[in-house]
Structures are given as structure tokens and as C-alpha cells.
């Protein structure tokens, strides 16, 4: 099965503030091999201490769709996201990503197909240089050094961080670290990207850059956020989760216009 040939996208008319000075040595296939679909059926999850975090989730997301996950703290958004790459396993119900059911047999490939960007980039960046961190994923997958090099370059270019390649992550600004954290995940060529509170801690410019970045991505996107403006600007579809169940699933503009709904579920 060969990789497809594709160019990384930039949003037309909005140049990324950080230009990359490198050219690709040669075009490298970047398209993911999975179909980027998500299918969750009757998902229940109980923590070991007995807390019922998810109480019956049914969800279908098509490849390439961009969905915002809204809801108050403690609603179960993070718990739900951690099911998508197999960190949590259902107590009842099933989770299918990119056509595979998440299980012990498929977990290796699931992690390659679903890229999770955690809320605190410091949890994700642990290498001496940006390059090493982005290379971690492909290296673990056992790719050849040439393939690793290409993947890292492409991933860094996609987030506009090629010029940061030899810097230490500790010394970057929060916005830069968030972009690098995304690159560490892009380097594995996932078909699905999941973000946990990506705009937390960003100033208005950082937020604007984030929105542009998210709009440039072609993968299936699921973003959990409290930032309603981010949701409105970037996602056509929103899902509202509260107390472990989905209470609304539909057009972002309709949901955000429904003040009662927002108030009832801690969003306003």
C-alpha cells in the first residue's frame, strides 16, 4: 500500500507569520492511509474508582469532518477523547477509528492513525531539541532514517516551525510549543487529529494563528474547547457533552445561538 502524494495546505490569502526558509528535498507522501472515520457505539466508561464518566455515547464522524466538542468541566470530554487513541478502553460499547476497532491487537496502528495533542505541550515535549521530539513518533515506528528525516521536515513545515528545529522546547513560547506539539503528532501521518483545549493560554495573536492552522489541516479534526469563538470560527459541527452523555449534536451556529442550551450546560 503506497502513500498518496499531497501538498501541505495553507489557508489562501492569510500568510503564516512564520515563513519556512527550507525547501523540501523532494516531495514526500503525507496523506494518511486510513479513512479518518470515527464510529462510537453505546460507549460507557467507568473509572476504576467507580466514577461513571461516560454513560452511553453514540457518535459518527466522517473522514475530513471538523467537529468541536463543547461542554462544562467534568462533562467527560477528555475521557471521551482518550478513548479515540485507546488510552481508555470502554467498559461497554465499541469505538472504531479509521475503520479499526480499538483493541489490544490494533492499538499500535490506532496510535499511528489518531494523533492526540494534549492540553499542556510540556507533557508532550521531552526531548533536547524540537527535531528530536518530532522524530520520536516515526523513530518508534521503526522507519528508516531517510523516511524519518522527511517526515520531520514536512511536519515542521506544516506548522511553520522549521526554523525552530534545533531549539530546545523549554525555551520556546507557549504558542511555539503548541505548534511543535502538533508537529510531533503530524509526523506520524494520522488521519484523525484530536486536540484538548488548544487555545488555552494563548494571546489573541496566538489564537488567530491557531485558527489559521486548524483551518489548514485536512485530517478529521476533533477539538475540545471552552473557547466558543474558536468553535464558531473553525467548526461547522459541534457536539455538546454534559455529565457523560451527548446533549446536542449539530450545526455550530445553531447551537451557539441557543442561549438556553448554553446556559443549561455550563457554556455561558
Amino acid at each position, binding site marked *: 500500500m503506497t502513500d498518496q502524494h499531497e501538498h501541505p495546505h495553507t489557508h489562501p490569502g492569510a500568510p503564516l507569520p512564520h515563513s519556512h526558509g527550507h525547501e523540501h528535498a523532494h516531495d514526500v507522501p503525507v496523506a494518511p492511509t486510513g479513512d479518518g472515520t470515527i464510529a462510537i457505539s453505546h460507549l460507557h466508561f467507568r473509572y476504576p474508582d467507580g466514577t461513571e464518566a461516560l454513560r452511553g455515547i453514540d457518535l459518527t464522524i466522517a473522514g475530513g469532518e471538523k467537529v468541536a466538542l463543547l461542554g462544562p468541566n467534568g462533562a467527560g470530554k477528555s475521557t471521551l477523547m482518550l478513548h479515540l487513541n485507546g488510552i481508555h478502553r470502554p467498559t461497554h460499547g465499541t469505538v472504531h477509528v479509521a475503520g479499526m476497532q480499538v483493541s489490544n491487537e490494533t492499538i499500535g496502528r490506532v496510535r499511528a492513525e489518531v494523533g492526540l495533542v494534549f492540553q499542556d505541550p510540556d507533557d508532550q515535549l521531552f526531548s533536547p531539541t524540537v527535531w528530536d521530539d518530532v522524530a520520536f513518533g516515526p523513530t518508534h515506528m*521503526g*522507519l528508516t532514517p531517510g523516511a524519518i528525516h522527511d517526515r520531520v521536515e514536512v511536519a515542521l513545515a506544516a506548522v511553520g516551525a522549521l526554523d525552530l528545529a534545533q531549539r530546545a522546547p523549554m525555551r520556546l513560547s507557549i504558542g511555539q510549543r503548541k505548534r511543535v506539539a502538533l508537529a510531533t503528532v503530524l509526523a506520524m501521518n494520522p488521519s484523525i487529529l484530536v486536540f484538548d483545549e488548544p487555545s488555552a493560554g494563548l494571546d489573541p495573536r496566538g489564537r488567530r494563528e491557531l485558527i489559521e492552522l486548524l483551518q489548514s489541516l485536512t485530517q478529521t479534526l476533533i477539538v475540545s474547547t471552552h473557547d466558543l469563538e474558536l468553535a464558531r470560527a473553525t467548526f461547522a459541527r459541534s457536539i455538546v457533552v454534559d455529565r457523560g452523555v451527548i446533549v446536542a449534536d449539530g450545526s455550530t451556529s445553531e447551537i451557539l445561538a441557543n442561549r438556553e442550551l448554553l446556559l443549561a450546560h455550563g457554556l455561558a
Partner: protein
Amino acid sequence: MSRAVPGGRDARAAVITALLVILAIALLPMGAYVAILLSWFVVITAGAYVGISPLRLARRGAIALPFLLAAVPVIFLRTDELLWSGTVGPLSFSISGAGLRIALTAVLKAWVSVQASIVLITYVDAPTIVTALRRMRLPDAIATSAGLTIRYLELLRDEAKRMLRARTARSASPVGVGRERIGGSIGWRARTTGNLVGSLFLRAYARAQRIEEAATSRGATGSLSVGTMPAADPRLAMKVIGVFLLALFLTLSGALLPRL
């Protein structure tokens, strides 16, 4: 869930009780199973008073059981009180009653002692114990350092857990492309683990600096005994005497009760 009363209690009696009971158990002679059982009753009674059921205590005490492995050699290598000796296939070995007694006694003592320790930490929480130790002349540097370690333990462990989770999330198998060795070489894996350790250290160091700045801006000068000392237990002397008697009773039981 625990009966722990935060900070406001003098825990010296509790600490001394736990230590003396454990010492009494350690002093029991080999084979004093009935005395060990008696000491277990003492411990589970205290446990019930504190809100832990005996079965739960017994189960948690099981973390001591793997140490039986350390004592297994004496069972097979001692030659006194042979219970059985012979050959199984090409191997000839023997089982020594004396060795069995040593191993069993050690494991049972460990099992009960762990439960005593659990009762202590359930009855008074760790910061209260540190305060009590301070009162018992634990040096300030250790008490302060221990207090802070306890205070930030969960926080740093959570950071570590999240970092581990992030590493696991990127520990994938390749999809459809050629591969050399999944998981990297041992050297590479050791290096990334070391990177995790180093990153966590830098985060801890930075946090320590922030705490120091916050503390000095509120007037601290190095010792961080937080809050006022709880009032001294007026019945401390009586309790200590009581515990001495209890320990004496257990030790006597070890000497007088039948042994196997």
C-alpha cells in the same frame, strides 16, 4: 473515606503506638504463630476503630507476601528438622521444618506489620505525622523537605503520568510503510526515558523556584513549618504508658503462648 483529621491533632501517640507494636511483633520468637495471630487481632481492632474492615486490611497487607521469595532458600537448604528429603527426577532436595518456620514467621510478621502501618496512615494523615515527628526532634531540614515532598507528590506524579501517556500515544506501529525495528533500540529507549526524567526535573526545579519566590515574598526564611503547632495531647503520657503495656503484653504472649 479516611478518618484522618487534618493538621489539628497531636499524632505523637499514634506514631509511637505503631512503632512499638511493630517492634513487639518483630521481637516475637520463631514459630509464635498464635502470638502473631493475637497481634493481628490487635491491629485489626485498631483498624476497625479507624474505619478499615479487617478483610481489606488483610488484603492490602498482601504486598508483603512476595518477600517470601527471599526466605525460600532456607526452607530447602537448612538441614535441621527435615520434614522430607528425596529426589524428584534428577534433583535431590529436602524440606526443613526449621526453615519453614523461619520463612513463615517472617512473612506473617511482615504481613501484620504492613497492616499496622496502614492503620497509622489512615488514622492520621502524612502532614500531621511530619508535624508530630518535628515535635519529637526530627531535624527541621528533613521535616520541611519531607513536608514539601508530600505536598507536591501527587502533582508531580500526575505530570509524570501525563508525560508517560503522551509518550505512549506516540508509540505506534507503522501503517503500510517499511519498518526496521518497532520501538527503537534499547539505547534509544533508554535515552528517551532519560529525556523524560530530565524534563520532569527541569519542571520540578522551575516550580521550586516559583515556590521559593512566593514564600520569600510572604516573609519565609527557610523553615516552612506550616501553620501553628497543634495543641499538645494532654493525655500523651498516659497513652504512651498504655502502649508500652500493650507492647509488653504482646512480647509476653510471644514467650508464653505455644509455638510450633
